[in-house]
């Protein structure tokens, strides 16, 4: 079934987040480049919900604090300081980051604010040590143009990146602090995007403008796209963390289909049920499973757990219905149970008998719960407290199913599906960062920025194509693959041929990837070093592909030692020159004959193939021959 998005009233808003490539973090002097190899010290914290300035508690904050986890932080002294520990007030807002954000704003026709006010956005899941993320609006308004249609920009904000989640288990969550505080720009569009394709194009258009500043980070984890998706009669659902552009349309389609299914379920439930759900009443049914063959239940009982059950009247059949891959009410119920009570999962009678639970057990369960054929029963096996909390979440979600689509925050998965993570936060979670006075943006400063705006990627493509004699298509491919930045850096720092660099960064890497090489492991530093060594003549062009393949598969950071371990760098150029001299001396009587020189070149290639670049050999030979014949004549 093809969806008519216009008729469905689809509205999508984008929030594009991208790390800025500044020297320092947003509020402290720690670097924004880090590796995670260093020695870590760790410390533990607890966060508490705090009331907002309106005296209200934020639903997302309440969700986290109900779990009240112990938070373990790991820090590396090279990449975090007391500011990241929330033990030193933030330093002044990073001017370099402000300048990049303002530049992006001007490129999008946004109006910079007259004065930046840094805010605290409450986030108590531990990803910010302070319990809030510092964020500020830098500009409002503006637009990006997609296929001739203007998509309005609502705000451009500058905020600090969160700590990286290392692992989460019941009661404990662990984060690494290196990423915390790296500047992020966020561009939010109005919710006016009408189709999945338009969403992809708008995201790309914004990404291209951000890249035009030349000051954004590239690579895995530097871009995060959040989508606000709603359809008529559905709800505004925020999908977080879409990493790749290509996934955006899949996510939108999945979310629309999910909302359509939930709307359909709610209509049918209303017809079946009449009123609402009965009061929450979890029932201990452990005694029905004392001899169970279900491994999950067995393991849980052995650990002192109980089997708790919840009757969902009139839900039979609706829980496992799957009109589109992954879209099931059962998945929603399970996700709530996992998110709120961190249980491994739930069982429900739509999919039983199964999972080792026998039809006899199901029959006795139905009987004990007083469940008719139209009713469903949900089971959770865990320690009693968690099992009850899980069923409470299932109950609350089931009650939402009667109403339609709940407002929630979901996470995008790699396959384009989405999964519930927490309730949507309200506006109640924002209050002023009083440690930082407002920062005025003067007219003079803006005029100066306007006078030196960077070229757009289109202009850049034109220029590079002309400058290096490359096809426009090749340059566009470099841009689309986000390799144009490293392309320019390599050409700026080495004497490698533009064509070789460009084709290597496009065709060669693509073909390596096709052969199963993980080219994602080739960092920009590695690529730069490869071309440095190539242009120094340390290895020959013919070996480029092999060097890249080895560097990727071994994940090396020191290309020079890799090259020598491959036996490529064993040739000493002085030794080559001496050998050429000898060769020329031995054949001095034939040097006037062009064919003889060609033959000498053939000999040299035989000896040095793959170890010394052919061009270099030819150059050395020509020099020596010229010197010899010149000397003979003189």
């Amino acid at each position, binding site marked *: 079934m093809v969806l008519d998005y216009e008729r469905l009233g689809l509205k999508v808003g984008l929030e594009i987040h991208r790390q800025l490539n500044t020297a320092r973090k947003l509020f402290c002097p720690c670097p924004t480049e880090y590796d995670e190899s260093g020695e870590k010290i760790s*410390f*533990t*914290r*607890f*966060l*508490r*919900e*705090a*009331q907002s*300035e*309106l*005296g209200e508690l934020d639903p997302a*904050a309440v969700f986290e604090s109900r779990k009240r986890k112990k938070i373990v932080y790991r820090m590396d002294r090279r990449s975090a300081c*007391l500011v990241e*520990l*929330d*033990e*030193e*007030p933030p330093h002044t807002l990073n001017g370099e980051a402000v300048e990049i954000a303002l530049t992006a704003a001007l490129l999008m026709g946004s*109006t910079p*604010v*007259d*004065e*930046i*006010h840094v*805010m*605290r*956005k*409450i986030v*108590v899941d531990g990803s910010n*040590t*302070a*319990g*809030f993320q510092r*964020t*500020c*609006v830098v500009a*409002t*308004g503006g637009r990006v143009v997609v296929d001739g249609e203007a998509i309005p920009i*609502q*705000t451009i*904000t500058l905020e600090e990146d969160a700590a990286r989640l290392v692992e989460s288990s019941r009661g404990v969550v662990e984060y690494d602090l290196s990423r915390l505080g790296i500047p992020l720009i966020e561009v939010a569009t109005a919710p006016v995007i009408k189709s999945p394709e338009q969403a992809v194009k708008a995201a790309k258009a914004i990404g291209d403008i951000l890249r035009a500043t030349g000051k954004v980070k590239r690579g895995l984890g530097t871009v995060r796209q959040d989508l606000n998706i709603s359809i008529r009669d559905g709800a505004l659902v925020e999908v977080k963390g879409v990493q790749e552009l290509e996934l955006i349309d899949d996510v939108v389609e999945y979310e629309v289909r999910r909302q359509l299914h939930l709307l359909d379920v709610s209509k049918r439930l209303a017809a079946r049920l009449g009123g609402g759900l009965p009061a929450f009443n979890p029932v201990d049914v452990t005694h029905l499973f004392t001899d169970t063959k279900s491994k999950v239940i067995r393991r849980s009982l052995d650990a002192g757990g109980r089997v708790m059950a919840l009757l969902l009247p009139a839900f039979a059949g609706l829980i496992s219905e799957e009109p589109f891959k992954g879209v099931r009410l059962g998945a929603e119920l399970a996700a709530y149970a996992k998110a709120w009570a961190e249980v491994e999962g739930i069982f429900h009678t739509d999919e039983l008998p199964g999972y080792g639970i026998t039809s006899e057990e199901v029959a006795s369960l139905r009987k004990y719960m007083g469940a008719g054929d139209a009713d469903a029963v949900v089971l959770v096996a865990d320690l009693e407290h968690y099992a009850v909390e899980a069923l409470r979440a299932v109950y609350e979600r089931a009650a939402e199913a009667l109403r339609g689509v709940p407002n929630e925050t979901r996470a995008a998965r790699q396959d384009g599906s989405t999964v519930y993570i927490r309730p949507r936060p309200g*506006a*109640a*979670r*924002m*209050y*002023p960062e*009083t440690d930082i*006075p*407002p920062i*005025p943006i003067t007219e003079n400063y803006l005029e100066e920025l306007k006078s030196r705006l960077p070229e757009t990627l289109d202009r850049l493509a034109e220029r590079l194509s002309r400058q290096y004699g490359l096809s426009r298509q090749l340059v566009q491919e470099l841009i689309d693959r986000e390799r144009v930045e490293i392309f320019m850096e390599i050409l700026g720092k080495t004497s490698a041929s533009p064509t070789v660099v460009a084709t290597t960064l496009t065709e060669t890497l693509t073909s390596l990837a096709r052969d199963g090489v993980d080219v994602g492991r080739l960092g920009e530093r590695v690529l730069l070093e490869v071309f440095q060594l190539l242009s120094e003549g340390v290895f020959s062009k013919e070996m480029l592909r092999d060097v890249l393949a080895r560097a990727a598969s071994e994940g090396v950071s020191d290309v020079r030692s890799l090259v020598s371990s491959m036996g490529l760098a064993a040739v000493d150029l002085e030794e080559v020159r001496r050998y050429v001299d000898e060769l020329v001396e031995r054949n001095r009587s034939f040097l006037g004959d062009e064919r003889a020189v060609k033959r000498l070149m053939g000999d040299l290639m035989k000896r040095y193939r793959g170890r010394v670049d052919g061009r270099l050999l030819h150059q050395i030979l020509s020099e020596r021959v010229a010197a010899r014949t010149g000397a003979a004549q003189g």
Partner: protein
Amino acid sequence: MDGGYTGLCRRLISEAGASIGDEVLVVTRKGEYRGFLMMRYELGAADHIVLKLANGYNIGVKVWDDSRVVKLSESRPPSFRAVEPPPPDPGLPHVAVISTGGTIASRVDYRTGGVRPALTASDLLSAVPELSGIARISAEVLMSIYSENMNPRNWALMAERVDSLLRSDVDGVVIAHGTDTMGYSAAALSFVLQQPPKPVVLVGSQRSSDRPSSDAALNLVAAVDIAAKAPIAEVGVCMHLGHSDDVIAFHRGVRVVKLHTSSRSAFKSVNCEPLALWTRSGLKIQAEKYHRRGGDDYRFMPGFDERALLLKFYPGMSPEVLEVLRERLCLRGVVLEGTGLGHVSSSFIPTLKRLRDEGVFVGMTSQCRYGRVDMLVYDNGRDLLRAGVVPLDNMLAETALVKLMWVLARAEEYEEVKRLMATNLVGEMGGRSMPEGVG
């Protein structure tokens, strides 16, 4: 209302009839902004109006003569709604919590944008509900001042109030205090409330209690727990031991000092171990000797004479500084914070002799903080001793100053001042010196 606004902004806002919190439209030559009118931040430029946008963000909008403010609707003013604390459990110990101000008892004031003392002790209880599982709490606001504004009159007021509580049926007293001078107040209370029958616990926080990451909650939980149940009946300070929210140190009031401007582990016991370490699983006593709860040797000994001075010596300092200050402030005593083992330049010797002759007490502490003074090691030290300077062993300079004020209030004669200053009264000096990182 002025909301911190002056001049043009104030005129535009009042012409619109708008108040803080109202929804307004601000029209300037650069564009239109719709939002809620917020208080002006104190340090901001005067020609900007602060708006909270619908998405919760604040921005500053610059106005000119031709700008307009239009009031769109009235809004409810921001307010802090305290959650009702659970009813007290009559079976639990009774702890009195006195609020004096500081970060632990402060909130962001959204009307000024600053952190200020506004939270009452009972607000704290609603913010830290687990306190009601530890003790029955009675809370009161004694004063509401930043700790840098504290003075010996405030110490006296605090001591008086604690004295009357110690004589009541409470099981312990907790004092919420700003951290900057909490060490001085703790020392002051230690000298006034000698051998108290119950713990007197000062507690603060380095990060304000309205932040989710505040150290206030755990410090307060530990302080109330210690006040309610600990066997140690001394005046002490309860703060984080390290960077983690797990171990809280209970420091002896005369031995504790703030050694970091912002870290939650700022407070350290110097030249001794903390009295005890608190965790959620219990209290581990570290001190070899301490005053036990429930004794009948309690003495209330109030009074401070402020004619005392703490002077930090630096290379090249002129002795004239001391002479002028002595003259102008009618000093009766001076604590010197000398170098190393307890030295000041030998150029001070004539002045010090004269002070001694005039009956002005001069005591020596070390700016090293760690270790004890010893003025017998070098010639200059011996000369200073002969000039009448009294070595104060391993007493913290801050504690020595507070002690001197207290001693001056009860001793007229120089010799008596000297004797009291050189005598360990409440654990403020003496003890064995230990190597770092051991024991």
